[in-house]
């Protein structure tokens, strides 16, 4: 095993609680287990602190009326109970921590009276945090390895989410982060939002259209572009433009050649 592989094992041990207790790791005897465990727990709290601060920033801005700041959960017994199972960056861990924060924010006394869209808001924030999880590309390599799409059979990325909301949240979000006295309110109007993440880790939220909904439903990695155009009722140029947008935000990838 070269030094880079040893470093990878060390990073995994710090990030992956079940691996940390496995014979595969322990038998290597690379570091004092107690010290490593303490540092791993410190890292886990830091890792999810950064994510809750970022993805739950709207709930945080509402804390003066809900009485609940999302990151508070990291100091609680609920988070401590997760520590033995957490894998930093995994979807399952993101779901578990986001659920803790969402339940905490929703649990404030009378919060829903003053923020009737609070359920929608925490669902939005949870989706942002969950869709961000997963392995990502840190390095594109040198120029010769640049990604080239072969426009063959598009497939919806497994992390992509479509969620319906009862309130038009995107209209209110910027106002929550500015100074306010009365709680900003969004229009009560049903919308569907698409949550996705690019291979490099950029999270996007977009309003969907009938064309996007249909494409995401049909993009199973087996249908050709011609099949998709026919079934979605789109002209080739319209199909290509929509697909390019979806590929750019990571909602769709290609089953071959990308």
């Amino acid at each position, binding site marked *: 095993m070269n*030094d880079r592989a040893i470093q990878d094992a060390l990073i995994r041990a710090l990030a992956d609680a079940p691996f940390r207790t496995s014979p595969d790791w322990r038998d290597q005897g690379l570091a004092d287990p107690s010290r490593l465990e*303490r540092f791993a*727990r410190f890292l886990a709290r830091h890792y999810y602190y950064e994510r809750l601060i970022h993805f739950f920033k709207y709930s945080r801005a509402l804390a003066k009326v809900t009485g609940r700041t999302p990151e508070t959960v990291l100091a609680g017994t609920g988070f401590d109970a997760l520590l033995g199972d957490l894998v930093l960056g995994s979807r399952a861990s993101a779901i578990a921590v986001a659920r803790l924060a969402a339940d905490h924010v929703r649990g404030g006394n009378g919060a829903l009276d003053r923020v009737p869209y609070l359920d929608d808001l925490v669902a939005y924030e949870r989706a942002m945090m969950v869709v961000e999880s997963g392995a990502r590309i*840190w390095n594109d390599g040198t120029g010769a390895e640049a990604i080239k799409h072969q426009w063959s059979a598009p497939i919806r990325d497994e992390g992509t989410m479509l969620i319906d909301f009862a309130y038009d949240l995107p209209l209110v979000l910027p106002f929550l982060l500015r100074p306010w006295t009365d709680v900003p309110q969004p229009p009560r109007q049903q919308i569907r939002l698409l949550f996705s993440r690019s291979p490099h880790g950029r999270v996007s939220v977009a309003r969907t259209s009938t064309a996007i909904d249909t494409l995401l439903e049909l993009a199973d990695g087996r249908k050709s572009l011609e099949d998709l155009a026919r079934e979605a009722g789109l002209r080739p140029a319209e199909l290509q433009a929509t697909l390019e947008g979806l590929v750019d935000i990571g909602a769709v990838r290609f089953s071959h050649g990308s």
Partner: protein
Amino acid sequence: MAQLMVGAFYNPHLGQELAQASGIDHLAMADPPRADDLWWPRIRERYTLLLHDYLGQLSEPLDERAIARARSLAELYHTPWVAEHFQCLHTEDGTYNLNYVFPPLYTEEFLERFVANANALQGRLDQPLVMENIPGFFDVKASRMPEAVWLRRFFERTNAGFLLDLPHIWLEAHYHGVDPKAFLADFPLERVVELHVAGVEPDRDLEGPWIAPTEPSQEMLDLLHHAIERCPRAQAVTFDAFSPSLSAEVLQRSVARIRAAL
């Protein structure tokens, strides 16, 4: 010794206070400015800005995207130097990421990797590169030489500048049960361009002190005073706190106390 600048990190939630503050010479930029940051134009106009963003880990070559980003930020800030860390925090395949500074193994293989990739990066930058030391909370048996030796050899082969993080030195000394000033003596202080100073607080997981967005202790300021006399090329001292929980009062008082300690 050149004229020393004393500054802090730009914390966007303190944008208004920083835009109006006095006694702060520079701001280090840990993140690019947000599009909705109303104070950024005044901050940019008023301060010397130091690029201190995450550019990438030099255990691997930076790709064109990362280099273009570094160049673009350096131009935006008119930074006098570009800072990166001696860190290796994500696996080579991208599956695991600690999202926190973490040092590489101090071995020949990692030295070769960091030297080659730092030299390649320097060839693409218009500003000097400075590299920051990172603390280890525990020893790793696969490391083959002391951190100070590894760093000295790196600087000899790259001619990069040294960003000396004093709290990192203090923490390593603390967890190894040695005197911080004695621990510091082995590091290549003649290479230091910038120093970081910060506060430490008890951490429940570590069961001991760690970096926190609080004022530096008198002991830390004494260590700064001791170090700065041994860093003839130092140009800046930065209060290293970047957190939504940092208050303007703590930031401004810390900068003033750092200045008084020099």
